[in-house]
C-alpha cells in the first residue's frame, strides 16, 4: 500500500500535509483512488468556506460511484486545486501529488491527532 510516512491521514481516506505557514493541504489517498476506480468528476468547496471536522465538503465521482470527501480538521478553505476539477484522472495517476484543497486549521493542534501512516494502514487494511 502506497502510504507516505511523512503525511497524516483520516479513517475516511484523506491525506493531510502540514505546510510551513501552518496551513494544511489535503487530498484522497492512493488506496481510496484505487477503490473508487477511474475518476470522472470532482467538486471542491468554495474558498472561504468554514468547515467543521468531519464535514462532507467535496465529492469525487468515479465511473461507478460517487463518494464524499470529509474535512480532516475544522478550518477555513484557503485554496482549491482547479487542475483536478479539469482533469480528475490526475488523482488516479498520483493521489499524493494532486491535492484537492488547502485549509487553515481552526486549532493547529488538531492535525497532530490524525492517524500516522502506520495507523492508516491498519484502518485501510480492513476496508
Amino acid at each position: 500500500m502506497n502510504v507516505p510516512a511523512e503525511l497524516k491521514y483520516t479513517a475516511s481516506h484523506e491525506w493531510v500535509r502540514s505546510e510551513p505557514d501552518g496551513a494544511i493541504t489535503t487530498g484522497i489517498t492512493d488506496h481510496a483512488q484505487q477503490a473508487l476506480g477511474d475518476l470522472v468528476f470532482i467538486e471542491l468547496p468554495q474558498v472561504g468556506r468554514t468547515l467543521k471536522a468531519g464535514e462532507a465538503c467535496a465529492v469525487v465521482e468515479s465511473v461507478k460511484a460517487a463518494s464524499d470527501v470529509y474535512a480532516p480538521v475544522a478550518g477555513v478553505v484557503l485554496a482549491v486545486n482547479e487542475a483536478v476539477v479539469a482533469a480528475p484522472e490526475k488523482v488516479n495517476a498520483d493521489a499524493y501529488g494532486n491535492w484537492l484543497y488547502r485549509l487553515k486549521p481552526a486549532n493547529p493542534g488538531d492535525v497532530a491527532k490524525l492517524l500516522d501512516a502506520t495507523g492508516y494502514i491498519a484502518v485501510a487494511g480492513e476496508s
Partner: protein
Amino acid sequence: MLKQTPLHAIHRAAGARMVDFGGWDMPVHYGSQIDEHHAVRRGAGMFDVSHMLAVDIEPREPARGSGVRDFLRGALANNVDKLTVPGKALYSCLLRPDGGVLDDLIVYFLREDWFRLVVNAGTADKDLAWLGALVAERAPELKLTPRRDLAMIAVQGPQARERVWTVVPAARAASESLKPFNAVQAGEYLIARTGYTGEDGFEITLPAALAPDFWRALLALSVKPCGLGARDTLRLEAGMNLYGQDMDEAVNPLESGLAWTVDLTSARDFVGKSALLAAHPSRQLAGLVLQDQGGILRSHQRVSTAHGDGEVTSGSYSPTLSRSIALARLPARVAPGDIVHVDVRGKPLAARVVKPPFVRNGKSLID
C-alpha cells in the same frame, strides 16, 4: 462462498479488482475501466461471461423434435417462429403472467430438437425453477439441461473477429459470412455474432477446460481483458437494458423500451400476453444526456419533467462521449429533445431526452 468461472484464476493472477456479481466472484476491471472501454470501441477487448447460464431444451426421447419450438412459442414474449435457419438467435423477455419481466435472454435455434437459452447469472436459479415448472405443466416430454460445463467469452470491437480467426483459423471459413445475431458451431466452439457493447464481435461458447488457453491466446494478440465495469458503460452507450436495473418483475417490457421484442401481432398465446394486451403504458424508458456540469447521473436519481416525475434506472459516465448519460423511466408524454431536471446529490441538473442508443460502432449518435 462466491462462485467462480473457469477463468477465475487468470483474473486473480492478472490483478483484477473482483466484485460479487449475482453470487459470482467477477472482475470489475483489470486496472482502468475507461481504458478497457476504449479498447473495445477502437480495437478488441474480451469479457469472461461464463457466469451467464446456457440452458439447453431438448426432447427427453430423441426423434420427437417439434415440441421444443412449440413450448418456446408459449414461454417467450418474442416469437421463435422468427428463427427459421439453424444458428439464428433471438433476444426475448421471459414474462410472468402479469407481464412483469422475469429475465431477458437470448434463444438460439440449434436444431429443431435443440434450442438453447442464455440467461443472466443472478436470475439463473429463478429461471430454471420457472421454466422447469412450465415444462412440467405444458411439455413434460422435454428436458432442461443447465450447461455449467461450458464457458462463455465475448470478444468485442472492430478487430475482434480477426483476432478470433487468428486464434482459431478453422473457424474463419465457418464464421466469416455469419450475419449479426447468427451462430455457427466450429469444432468445439459455438461462435455467435452477438454482444452487449454496440460493437461487432463474437460471443463464443466452449468447453470450460478449453477456456483458459483460448483466453491466453487472445491475450497474446493484445486483445484487452475487460471487466464488468467496462461492460456496463459499453452497454449503456449502446442503449441496451440491464436486467434488475432497467427492468424487473415490477415492470412490463412495454414500459422498458422493449416493445420491439414483444410479438403481439401473431395469433400465438404466450405467458404474459393477455396482461400486455390489457396494459396502458404510462411510462417509457428513454435516454438522458446531462447538459449541466455538477455530477454524474446514477440509478435511482429522481427526474422532474413537465409531465410528472421519473427515475434514472442506469446512469454513468460515457467514456466515448466524455459526458454523463443515463437510461430513465419517464412519463410517456416526455419526448426526445425535452429538457428535464435530475436530482444529483440535491442539485437539479438539466438533461436532454434522447432516443437510445448513444453510441454504435464507435460513433456518437448524439448531436
